[in-house]
Every structure is written in C-alpha cells, then in structure tokens.
C-alpha cells in the first residue's frame, strides 16, 4: 500500500474502515515511490472521476443551452460543476503539496505551488488570446441591427492597450474565463493554508468560515475592469477550497461517523429533494404558485458570486450521499466505461482549458455553420470526445516520458499534476 492509497483512501471514504491517514502518519514513508505510476493507478479514483465529470459539465454549461444541458446538475439543484471542481482541487492540492510541505519543508512546497500558479496563469493568458480572436472576428462580421446595443461589448477593442494589461492583471475577465483567476488566487493562498493546517486544521477551517462570514457581512470583493467585481469572489469561494484541503488532511476521516449516520443521509436527501423542487419551479413556472412568497423572498437571489450558503450546503449534501453510496473500492471505478472521465479528471488543468476553448469553438460553429439541434448535439459530443482523446494523449506522453528514465523527476511532475486544476 502506498501513501497515496492510504491518505486518499481513508479521507473521503466516510463509511470505509478507518486507517491512520493523518499527514503525520504519511511522513516517514519514502518519498519518490509514493506517486510513481502504480501508485497513481491506485489513487483515489472517485476524485478523478468527479473532477472529470465536473470538467465535462462545465464544458456543456458553457455551450448554448441544448438537450444535453438537461444532464448537467445545475438543473437539479442549487450547486453546479464549479463547486465540485473547486472542492476537489482543494482536496488534491492539499494532498499533494501538504505531503511536500511535510517532507521537504515550507520553502520547497511554496516554490512548487508557485510553479503551478505560473502554469495556470499562462493557461489563462492563452485562453484570453483565443477570446480576443473570437470577439474581434464577431465585431468585424456581425452587424445585425437587432443587436446594435449588445455590440457595445466590443467597445473595449478600442483600447487594446488598457484591456490587455488589465487582462494580464486578471482584472479584465470575459465571460466563461472566471474559474482560472479564482483558482490562481486560491493556489496563491495555498502555502498559507497548508502552513496553518499543519499547525491546527480545525482552526484553519474555522478561520476560513470566519472569512466567508465577514465577506458576506461586509461585502468584501475584488474589483474588475472596466468596472464591477470578480464573478467568483475568492473571499467566499475559498471556503470550498479550504474545506477540500481540510478533508484531504484528515478531516473527512474524522467526519466519517457523521457521514455514516442515517440522520445525515436523510437530511441530505430531504435537502436535495427540496432544492430539486425549487429548481423545478424555475422551469415549470406554473409550479411557482405553490412556493410561499416568504420563502422566495428569503431565498432569492441564490448568489453564485459569493457562494450562497444554499449552494454550499447543496454541495455538502451531494458529497455526503456520494461518499455513502459510492465506496472507494467500487469495481465500476476500474471499468472501461468510466475510464474517459477519470482520464480527463487526472489532467484537469489541460482539459479545463481545452473545454473553455472548445466552448468558444462550439459557439463559433453554431453561429457560422448552423444552429440546429443536431449540430448542437454533434458539437457537444465531439467536444467531450476531443477532451477524452487529448487526456489520453497527455497520459500517453507521461507514460512514455516515464519509460525514458528520470523517474524521480517525473514523480514530482506527476505530483504537481495530481494537485493541479
């Protein structure tokens, strides 16, 4: 059994048998073999599975609505794929870099985290370039008089100098490009989070909750360009990230009794059903007559920017049920059918960027070629297939690189990937 297996195996697995998986327990093990290939094969596949799923759902949600959109979870409750993505990112990042911090010290771990931040930043700039190309194209070709007002969005093209600098400062972020800047900020805070977790995990989580509460109370936010605010407020979303990290570093194991209790299960189910009913009223407006006005006024708007408590608890309920009904050793995790999802989840930064790019491209094809339902379905499916294909190619590269020696170095590289977005 490897460290990867130990730590990941027992943390989220609320109902699984407890084993000692505190980071301290992981410390004395040898470092390099822990994350070599066989170990990766045994890593917590549920994390990869759900991160892969989140990536697919984010891609589909970024396309214009179609039949496939009905398969995305945001139509069945308050939370959506973003919550899954950020939580799992926090979990894996803490797992990988937390281990690095224990083994190699704060400085080394911080250095490696910063390298990761740099990779994400470069990816973000790359996506921005593609966005610029797309918007410039639309600006020059599209002159439907119905939409003269909406074309006002092109005004920023008049000042490319300012716009590009603001984009590099992460202040100008077009639609659909909000997740990576959030992730960059969260990763920048990771050394501090881990350092604090090493000291007192529960206090760290408490501080995170406190920051979340303060954000809501005093309306903290990061401003954006040309005006407005970050669409995902890092001060609020850090809660999910830190919670993920806390779970990875032993929190989930300590919660296992709570997770295993039938009370938790029934509360979760009740909450999910209630949330489902509320979302149903959005799509079947006739039902909204059965919603008490008081409840509506108290509940709306369900704020995504500041990670509404309703969204957070919805995610918790989903996670609690998932952990309960999908054991870590479920044989289906090794099945060929889930392989594409798991592969995508294992290379999440690359696949995330690819997904954003494919969504741009999909919009483009829908606009230029045809907007029919068949074309729409074709684009969604081929997008998912391309994501799978690229994920497979990336993992093939890694396997080949492994075979050509430099094992230790590669192990570190893989560890970064495991922690990555």
């Amino acid at each position, binding site marked *: 059994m490897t460290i990867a297996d130990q730590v990941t195996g027992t943390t989220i697995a609320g109902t699984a048998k407890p084993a000692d998986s505190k980071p301290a327990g992981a410390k004395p093990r040898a470092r390099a073999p822990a994350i070599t290939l066989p170990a990766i094969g045994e890593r917590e596949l549920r994390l990869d599975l759900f991160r892969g799923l989140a990536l697919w759902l984010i891609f589909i949600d970024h396309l214009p609505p179609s039949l496939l959109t009905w398969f995305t979870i945001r139509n069945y409750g308050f939370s959506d794929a973003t919550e899954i993505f950020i939580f799992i990112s926090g979990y894996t990042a803490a797992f990988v870099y937390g281990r690095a911090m224990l083994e190699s010290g704060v400085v080394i771990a911080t250095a490696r985290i910063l390298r990761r931040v740099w990779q994400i930043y470069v990816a973000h700039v790359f996506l921005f370039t593609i966005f610029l190309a797309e918007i410039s194209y639309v600006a020059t070709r599209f002159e439907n*008089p119905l939409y003269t007002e909406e*074309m006002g969005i092109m005004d920023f093209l008049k000042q490319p100098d300012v716009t590009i600098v603001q984009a590099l400062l992460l202040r100008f972020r077009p639609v659909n490009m909000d997740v990576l800047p959030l992730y960059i900020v969260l990763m920048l805070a990771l050394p501090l989070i881990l350092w604090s977790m090493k000291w007192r995990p529960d206090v760290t989580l408490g501080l995170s909750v406190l920051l979340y509460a303060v954000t809501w109370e005093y309306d903290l936010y990061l401003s954006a360009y040309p005006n407005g605010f970050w669409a995902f407020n890092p001060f609020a979303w850090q809660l999910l990230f830190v919670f993920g990290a806390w779970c990875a570093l032993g929190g989930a194991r300590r919660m296992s009794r709570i997770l295993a209790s039938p009370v938790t299960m029934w509360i979760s189910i009740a909450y999910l059903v209630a949330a489902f009913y509320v979302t149903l009223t959005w799509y079947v407006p*006739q039902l909204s007559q059965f919603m008490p006005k008081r409840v509506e006024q108290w509940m709306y*708007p369900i704020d995504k920017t500041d990670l509404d408590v309703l969204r957070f608890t919805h995610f918790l309920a989903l996670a609690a049920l998932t952990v309960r009904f999908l054991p870590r050793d479920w044989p289906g995790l090794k099945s060929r059918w889930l392989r594409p999802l798991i592969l995508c989840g294992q290379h999440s930064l690359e696949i995330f960027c690819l997904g954003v790019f494919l969504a741009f491209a999909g919009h483009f094809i829908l606009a230029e070629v045809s907007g029919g339902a068949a074309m729409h379905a074709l684009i969604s499916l081929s997008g998912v297939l391309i994501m799978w294909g690229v994920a497979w190619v990336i993992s093939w590269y890694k396997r080949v690189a492994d075979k050509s020696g430099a094992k230790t170095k590669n192990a570190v590289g893989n560890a970064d990937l495991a922690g990555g977005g």
Partner: protein
Amino acid sequence: MKAKVLLSLILLCGSLAAPVARAGDAAPAVPAACELPPYLLTSESQLPKVADAIKAGKPLEILVIGSRSTTIPSAEDASYPARMQAILKDKLPPSEAVHVSVEIQSKKTAEEAASSFVKLMEAKKPTLVIWQTGTVDAIRAIDPDEFRGAVTEGVSALQNAGADVVLMNLQYSPRTETMISAPPYLDNMKVVAQEHDIPLFDRFAIMRQWNDQGQFDLFSPSRGPELAKQVHDCLGRALAQFVIDAAHLEPVQQQN
C-alpha cells in the same frame, strides 16, 4: 388558485401538442412566427391602474423607457413600442385612446436611468411604464447587487409617481453569449419584480424560445433590418397581450 394552475398546465400542454395561433380572441391573426407558450405571456401580478383607466374610459398613456434595443435603427415605426400601440388599439375597444411614447436612454445603466425618473414622470404622467433595462449593466458588468438596488429604486420612483410598472429584461443574444453574462441581471430583475409584485415581461426567455423553436434564427449576421422588424413585431404583439392579460382586460373586450 388550483384551478388556475390546472388550467394553465392544460393550456401549456395544449400549446405543445397542437401549436395553433392563439388568435381566436382578436382581429389580427398572430403570425406563426410569434407563437409562444402561454406561460411566457402571463403574470400573477396585476396592473390595477391600467384596468381602472380603461374601465373609466380614460386614455391609456404608456411610456416605454428603454435603450438602443428598444428601437431598430432607421425603422422606428417597426420597433416594438410602435407595434404594441397598434396591436393594443386593435384589441381594446375602439373608443379607447392608446398612446405610447418612448424614452430612449442609450448607454445608461439602470442607476443612471433611474435618476431621471422623477422629472420624466412629472413631464409625461403615464398610466403604465414599461421599463426595459439590464443590457448596459450586463455589458459593463455592474455589480448585480448594485443593479438590483438601482432597479428597486427606479421601480419605487415610478410607482410613487402613480404609474403601474412592467419590467422588461434583456434581449436573448446568442452571438454575444460568450461575452455578456446575462443571468445575474435576469435573476435580479426577477427578484425585484417579485418583491414589488409587478409583472416581468421576460423578453430573454421569449426570444430564446423563438430561437430554440426555429421561428427566428437569432444567430443570423444579416445586415438588413428585416429580421429585426419581424422580431420587434412579435415582441410588440406579445407585450400587448401581456399587458391585456395582466390588467385582466379580456372581459371588457368581450363585452364590446
């Protein structure tokens, strides 16, 4: 209450099963392109002042406060306020005088527009104000909370001046969907409408319905005004129907 729900569900099913123009009640037949499921044209909230004005036989003064998407450049007569006026005149009793005036506040956010409402209302004294907003705020990515506050203030100002208010949200614009984030603004307008118990004309959902059902290809890059004219004609019809419905005017009309 329950009967109403049941009825609307039946209507919804009916309209899905047999897409027939909902034209039985009025003179001009609704073009097939304008068809909409009834739930997009109804509101629980009401327009009591409009109803009173028509009952009393007073002229119906409607003010549309909008932005550049309220009109079609170089074809004002075909824009939705003008079309709504024509349809309302058709549908309401001939004795009823209907006058629609338009106040365009281009490139202004909800907050900037709302600051002019007191003066505007003093000058125009309308029975009904249709306030179309949100696009400029979405383009400039105004903080949705601030946007909600501005819309709330604007609606209060209009109501205090003694008018019924209908809110109208953004256009559905698939081409710019990757660039303009509409959902926060749509949600917040829904909230304000609920809080003030005023009807919300869901232009976004209506236009998306047309695009999804293939009645209009809103991806079209056409430079000519034809598509815009047709869409505005349908919007004008839908809006007229919406106002009549929210003011519960059908019985009046049947008596005449």
